[in-house]
């Protein structure tokens, strides 16, 4: 008879066997036995957050920047409900999280006990799978299964709900099984015929474009390398979704910028006019496609994705390859190399006219803005931040709104896993806790949250976490006193009725920083900006940087609602009236 372990011990044995180093969590009545056990496991460090939502986002930042699953530990009831936003965020952006929640003892489930809630019921639609452990004998198996589900196939969050009596109960511990074939939920069985079809389409294309997404990042750094090789071999232009930034170097000439609602003119026009569209690990999100009926009307469409349910969900494609991006690309590269040695037909000549067209679009300089020497333009602030930090291996997180789009447009990423943003769910308050998680994973790297003043106040309390663990995160707040994106939509769609989008009583961010025990810096003048950014970067500790920017700046270019890719608004230089229909308004 082997040794018997308590449920709490089994939790840690599982975490150890899964090579977990950090847990992001917050204690409470129903998880106390697990917290009690923490002291006996020195290889696992617990990061105490200030709100469970922060734990979830920090775990997301940790996972996105390290490629490992993020672990969250919360109590029952409010602990579990507070983490729901982060779970949903991770579900939308395919981030592997394992959330362990305490639950009231088994005999009290269903009695409306103190801090009881139906955690598995509430989190069912926002996790890949969840479990309520009703028998201690199932615990180790369930926990290992949870890690497997979270990290395989299309990654995502899972939750294991453990009642308090199960945490005390004793049983044997089982190590994870080294299983190879898994339940048919992993899809990596693409055929050579499909690769041949892809090569056929590639060699016939005259106006091709590659559209890559977060799936490339999730497939690991090797997938980014494969993508770079694939793009170089074909000579095709490449655009990226918000989540895919960094998979291909942002300053490379073949990169035509981000696409979608606030994407570049050249990327969106290339999407519209192309004859071959190769989607690599992206999901045709509605911020990308614009008007569905007029989406890329003349192209053959290829979709490479690990999730079969992503295929034909929004856009019907001509060739679907279900598989891991890295494997598919490697296979395609092999085929192309073979073929090019045999025949001399190079795509690069065929598509030279297409590149000329793209260069023409590029001359529009769609990310341009009118700079000022009196007020700091937010775009200028991001550009200066980029120029002053690009030589370091910098990790950027963001909140959600205008600043997020400006960061995506003006900060160029050259490596994967350096860009953490809430794309699918669009969670304001994501960036600060995510930065905490990123800094935990990369203690010696520069981590900056490009933030908006409204978003960052939603999870501001996590500064306290950063101070507690000496995490030198930099919160670079583009402070325009408005919920900028809301204000922009109100300006464009609601006759400048700025209903409730102005924050009347903002805190003094410098004093706020000092109150948390970190450094506050304020900049309100373009002249001082560089010096102050340098001061922020050089400071060894957390900083809140209050960058006071032009409150009336809008984020351009943009595809207005109801319009296809080739009808963008091009910012203050674009005089043409682009009216948005009443019907379009209703659908924002």
């Amino acid at each position: 008879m082997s040794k018997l372990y308590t449920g709490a011990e089994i939790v840690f044995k599982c975490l150890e066997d899964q090579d977990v180093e950090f847990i992001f969590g917050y204690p409470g009545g129903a998880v106390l036995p697990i917290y009690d056990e923490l002291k006996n496991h020195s290889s696992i460090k617990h990061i105490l957050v200030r709100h469970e939502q922060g734990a979830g986002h920090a775990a997301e930042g940790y996972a996105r920047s390290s490629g490992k699953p993020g672990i969250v530990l919360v109590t029952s009831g409010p602990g579990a409900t507070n983490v729901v936003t982060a779970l949903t965020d991770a579900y939308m952006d395919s981030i592997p999280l394992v959330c362990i929640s305490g639950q009231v003892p088994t005999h009290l489930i269903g009695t409306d006990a103190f801090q009881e809630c139906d955690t598995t019921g509430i989190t069912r639609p926002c996790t890949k799978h969840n479990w309520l452990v009703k028998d201690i004998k199932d615990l180790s198996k369930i926990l290992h299964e949870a890690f497997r589900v979270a990290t395989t196939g299309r990654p995502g969050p899972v939750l294991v709900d453990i009642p308090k009596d199960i945490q005390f109960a004793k049983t044997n511990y089982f190590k994870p099984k080294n299983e190879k074939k898994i339940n048919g939920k992993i899809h990596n069985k693409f055929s050579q015929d499909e690769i041949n079809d892809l090569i056929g389409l590639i060699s016939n294309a005259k106006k091709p474009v590659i559209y890559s997404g977060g799936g490339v990042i999730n497939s690991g750094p090797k997938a980014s390398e494969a993508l770079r090789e694939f793009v170089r071999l074909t000579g095709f232009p490449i655009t990226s979704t918000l989540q895919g930034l960094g998979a291909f170097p942002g300053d490379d000439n073949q990169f035509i910028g981000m696409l979608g609602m606030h994407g570049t003119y050249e990327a969106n026009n290339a999407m519209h006019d192309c004859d071959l569209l190769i989607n690599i690990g992206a999901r045709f999100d509605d911020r990308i496609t614009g008007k569905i009926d007029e989406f890329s009307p003349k192209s053959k469409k290829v979709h490479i994705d690990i999730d079969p349910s992503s295929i034909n969900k929004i856009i019907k494609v001509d060739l679907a390859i279900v598989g891991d991006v890295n494997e598919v690309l490697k296979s395609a590269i092999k085929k192309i190399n073979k073929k090019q040695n045999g025949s001399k037909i190079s795509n690069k000549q065929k598509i030279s006219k297409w590149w000329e067209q793209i260069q023409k679009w590029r001359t529009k300089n769609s990310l341009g803005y009118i700079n000022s020497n009196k007020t700091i333009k937010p775009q200028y602030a991001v550009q200066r931040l980029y120029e002053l930090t690009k030589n370091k291996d910098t990790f950027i997180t963001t909140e959600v709104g205008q600043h997020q789009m400006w960061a995506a447009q003006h900060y160029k990423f050259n490596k994967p896993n350096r860009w953490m943003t809430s794309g699918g769910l669009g969670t304001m308050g994501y960036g600060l806790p995510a930065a905490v998680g990123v800094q935990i994973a990369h203690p010696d790297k520069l981590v900056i949250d490009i933030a908006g003043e409204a978003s960052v106040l939603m999870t501001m309390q996590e500064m306290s976490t950063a101070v507690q663990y000496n995490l030198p995160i930099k919160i670079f707040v583009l402070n325009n006193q408005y919920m900028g994106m809301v204000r922009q939509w109100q300006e464009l769609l609601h006759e400048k009725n700025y209903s409730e989008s102005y924050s009347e009583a903002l805190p003094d961010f410098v004093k706020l920083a000092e109150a948390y025990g970190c450094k506050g810096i304020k900049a309100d003048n373009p002249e001082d900006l560089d010096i102050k950014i340098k001061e922020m970067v050089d400071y060894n500790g957390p900083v809140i940087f209050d960058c006071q920017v032009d409150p009336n700046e809008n984020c351009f270019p943009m595809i207005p609602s109801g319009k296809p890719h080739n009808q963008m608004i091009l910012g203050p230089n674009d005089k043409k009236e682009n009216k948005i229909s009443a019907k379009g308004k209703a659908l924002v």
Partner: protein
Amino acid sequence: MAKPKSAYSIPTKKGKLDTHIFVVWVDNEAGVLARVVGLFSGRGYNIESLAVAEVDATKNISRITIVTTGTPQVIDQIKLQLKKLVPVHKVADFKREDKKVIFKEMALLKVVGNKKKIEKTLKACKSFNPVILDKTKKSVVIQITALRREIDKMSKKLKPFGLTSTSRTGAIAMTRGAEVFR
């Protein structure tokens, strides 16, 4: 009105709606039905009928039969989304018009009325394998097995004869011949 304009995926071309029957083999564990049904409600799919019971007690497998309608694209999505659920083993999808598949639904009908009406009722049910489960001077409970739409028709037809309550199982399905769905 002007053409519907949207930057979002509003279906301007509504596809034809087909009726499909999904058969889903799942682990018989707590919450599995909620996962399947929650998938339908959460993604806005429609359920016309639902039948579920354990079919293999040793392997703990339940078989769920769902009748639904949707455009071909939606039907495709339902199948792929169902397959993603962890406790789901396999998913079969049949068109209602499929000749290779048998669809059946059972109904219990209670008719309250005089002898004449009860006789008329029994006659009307004749072609649907009627079994009289209970009979009194004033009432009868009949079990019939038939297609969904046949039972729909019967419910209407029996109203004037004193049909007071109907209980239906929802459709279940099985392929014809020796073939087994893998």
